[in-house]
């Protein structure tokens, strides 16, 4: 009964989404207040309907209803509860439904939080989101219904891919999808602006929080995925330039560019058409990423069963959504009004530079990811583009971005001089050079030295604007402190997010110094590696709810002092007949001690030990970036200035008075 209710809710959601798109867009065109208001209500209704369908799927999975095909194929009665829940989105059908839920959530969020927006713009945004929802819901209902019944039901399920039975991965897709799909809102704003034929500073201000939220979530989602690959796949790597990783990196890159160009729209009313194009491109890349994975065109660890029929449906959907918006862009954007002029050396000039470099990186990654398909299609050749290509192209393009990031932050708007700005960062440059030279001479390595120097430059330089604003050491300290208290949150947010990038860069540079050792050890044997003594205490057997495992406890000592007991394991999952390696990781904050258990032979176990210098910083940095993004949303300046209604304006002025 519950799955049927979910199925019905899904069908209802399709109808509501169609109505949402139609009523809201037509209402905005006719400037009919009631129709426009109905659009918001329909968006809420659609969200509730999709949420019900999703809840029905999770419920079927939790109570082991194997008469639901999706549950039978992907779950098992012995699977732990967390994975029964997360298993609901760990497969094609469920993940698409989750995608729809997020998209419906975006519409509901605009309806709920967007009350400060002009009603026509709000209705158009909701209408565009409703149209997208209708397409994806229809796709779910017609080709990927997660609530399809199976008769007769099997006695038990086929279980989920053991690699996916992992807490990190339970939350990776929802976060990533929230980021992916969140960019639907800036996209809808862009399409709405094109329909209205008007982009102004207010538009830039309205788009920014949505772009920021999506960007922050996407940052978190990508980081979580990379962390999962790091500890679950057991290769010791953290980024593999896998097509699917690239597919998530692309919207992140263009989304980053969008965040920055929207600032220029807000402050200077320039770069309007470019920002519109970025908003369309970011969501389009999110969609393309989904399409490439779901259709199985790109071979990847992430692809579920590939199905060309579904692929054709998604492709059609994509062509309608992206093609429609780009056609609208080609038609309306030329009349959006000339871009304001500005000097090349200025804050906005620096932001343009940021856009150029980040979009170059995005094009390189895009080319590298799609080239194998192109080669297959045009030359009939099988080839793959791997890490060497991406490292050789992305790294050189990142250096100027990192260098310019900190300088751009302290440049004033409109017109600036580069010399004085650089002079104001002399201390950060000095520290960066000192670190770089020390690492280069001490360890005789070039790339990590550049990386560390860049990291120091970024972390210190990011706070350059704050130091500049409080006029540190140029006025008495008490005055500086008072100025510090008066700084807006967004200044802090920018500094923190940029510094987070520096932390990540440090982690990546540190990982270039990581060392590993593969060795066969007998019980009780001790190995000296990376300044630690690793003693394997003998392999023992264990059992979990749906697997058997071999565990090799390793006591790690440093100079005779006990540090930690690692327990790498190999798990054999009974239902799926698959083995996974469970890495065991101890982090000191500055490095990860990372152990993997390999095969056992002749009474010895093969151990792979890694010493990953600064590895945790990669993800800590991403977390900091994400935090910076959210902090920026919290800045009231993003909300002030929106044509507020009485109550809101009253609150705002009160807040100012309190300061």
């Amino acid at each position, binding site marked *: 009964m519950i799955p049927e209710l979910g199925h019905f809710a899904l069908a209802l959601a399709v109808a509501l989404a169609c109505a949402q798109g139609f009523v809201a867009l037509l209402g905005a065109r006719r400037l009919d207040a009631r129709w426009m208001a109905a659009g918001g209500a329909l968006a809420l209704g659609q969200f509730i309907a999709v949420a019900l369908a999703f809840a029905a799927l999770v419920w079927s999975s939790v109570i082991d209803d194997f008469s639901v095909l999706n549950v039978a194929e992907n779950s098992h009665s012995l699977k732990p509860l967390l994975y029964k829940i997360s298993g609901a989105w760990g497969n094609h059908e469920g993940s698409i439904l989750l995608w729809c839920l997020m998209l419906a959530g975006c519409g509901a969020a605009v309806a709920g939080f967007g009350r400060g927006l002009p009603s026509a713009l709000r209705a158009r945004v909701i209408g565009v989101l409703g149209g997208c929802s209708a397409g994806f819901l229809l796709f779910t209902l017609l080709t990927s219904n997660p609530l399809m019944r199976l008769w007769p039901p099997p006695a038990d399920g086929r279980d989920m891919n053991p690699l996916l039975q992992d807490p990190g991965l339970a939350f990776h897709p929802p976060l990533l999808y929230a980021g992916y799909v969140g960019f639907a809102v800036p996209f809808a704003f862009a399409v709405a602006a094109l329909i209205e034929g008007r982009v102004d500073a207010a538009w830039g201000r309205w788009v920014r929080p949505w772009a920021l939220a999506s960007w922050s979530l996407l940052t978190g989602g990508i980081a979580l995925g990379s962390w999962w690959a790091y500890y679950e796949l057991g290769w010791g790597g953290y980024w593999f330039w896998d097509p699917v990783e690239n597919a998530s990196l692309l919207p992140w890159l263009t989304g980053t560019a969008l965040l920055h160009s929207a600032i220029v729209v807000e402050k200077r009313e320039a770069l309007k058409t470019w920002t519109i194009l970025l908003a369309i491109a970011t969501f389009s890349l999110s969609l393309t990423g989904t399409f490439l994975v779901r259709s199985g065109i790109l071979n990847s660890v992430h692809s579920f069963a590939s199905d060309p029929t579904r692929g054709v449906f998604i*492709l059609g959907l994509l062509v309608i959504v992206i093609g429609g918006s780009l056609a609208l*862009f080609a038609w309306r954007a030329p009349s959006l009004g000339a871009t304001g002029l500005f000097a090349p050396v200025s804050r906005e000039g620096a932001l343009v530079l940021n856009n150029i470099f980040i979009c170059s990186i995005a094009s390189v990654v895009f080319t590298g990811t799609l080239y194998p398909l192109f080669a297959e299609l045009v030359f009939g050749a099988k080839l793959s583009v791997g890490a060497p290509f991406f490292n050789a192209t992305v790294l050189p393009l990142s250096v100027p971005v990192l260098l310019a990031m900190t300088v751009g932050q302290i440049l004033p708007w409109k017109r600036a001089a580069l010399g004085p700005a650089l002079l104001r960062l002399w201390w950060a440059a000095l520290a960066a050079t000192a670190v770089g030279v020390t690492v280069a001479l001490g360890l005789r390595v070039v790339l990590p030295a550049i990386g560390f120097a860049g990291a120091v430059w970024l972390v210190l330089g990011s706070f350059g604007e704050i130091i500049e604003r409080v006029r540190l050491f140029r006025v008495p300290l008490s005055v500086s402190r008072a100025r510090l208290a008066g700084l807006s949150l967004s200044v802090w947010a920018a500094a923190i997010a940029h510094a987070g990038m520096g932390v990540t860069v440090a982690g990546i540079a540190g990982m270039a110094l990581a060392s590993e050792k593969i060795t066969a050890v007998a019980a009780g044997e001790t190995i000296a590696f990376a300044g630690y003594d690793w003693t394997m205490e003998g392999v023992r057997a264990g059992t979990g709810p749906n697997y058997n495992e071999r565990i090799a406890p390793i006591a790690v000592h440093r100079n005779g002092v006990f540090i930690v007991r690692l327990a790498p394991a190999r798990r054999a999952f009974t239902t799926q007949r698959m083995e996974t390696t469970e890495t065991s990781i101890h982090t000191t904050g500055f490095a990860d001690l990372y152990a993997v258990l390999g095969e056992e032979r002749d009474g010895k176990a093969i151990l792979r030990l890694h010493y990953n210098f600064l590895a945790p910083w990669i993800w800590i940095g991403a977390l900091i970036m994400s935090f910076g993004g959210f902090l920026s949303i919290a800045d009231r300046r993003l909300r002030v200035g929106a044509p507020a209604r009485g109550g809101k304006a009253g609150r705002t002025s009160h807040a100012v008075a309190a300061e």
Partner: protein
Amino acid sequence: MNPVGRRLMFLAPLALLGIGGVGAFTLLKRMAEGDFDPRGVPSMLIDKKVPDFTLAAQSGQAGFSAADLAGAGQPVLVNFFASWCLPCVAEAAQLLALKQRGVALWGIAYKDRDEETARFLKQHGNPFARIGRDAEGKAALEFGVYGVPETYLVDRAGIVRWRWVGALTDVVVARALNPLLKQYA
């Protein structure tokens, strides 16, 4: 820039999408027809002799070896399957239809228990003339099997002519398999 050039510039993203869309559609079409396999590398066995193997028989059936394949006197479809594999269930009807048409189908039960294979055959029908048991997956390793189901076409001389990963669909049979069966009959 003149107004026309400016207009054209704004059309560029749409053109890019058009090219990408046509390319993706072509790939999807070729995927459905069986001449594009995104799983990458084509089988190393194509146009080579079948690797050497001898398989124990599934109870009540005849087993077979590489030599039996070469001496079959007609092209044989070798199908790796397992009772625990859902796509194999989906494929069962297709295989039965091929058997009806007189195509020789020999099955290899991959990493499966004898009684479970028997139950599977009873439930979904047995299209196979012979069934070998590859309990440890050694023969599959020799073939370079990617996963079950997987199907190989072996000609009269015992040479592998074609491989298909995943369940055989109507389109694959019509577009890829039938011409080959005619060619090597």
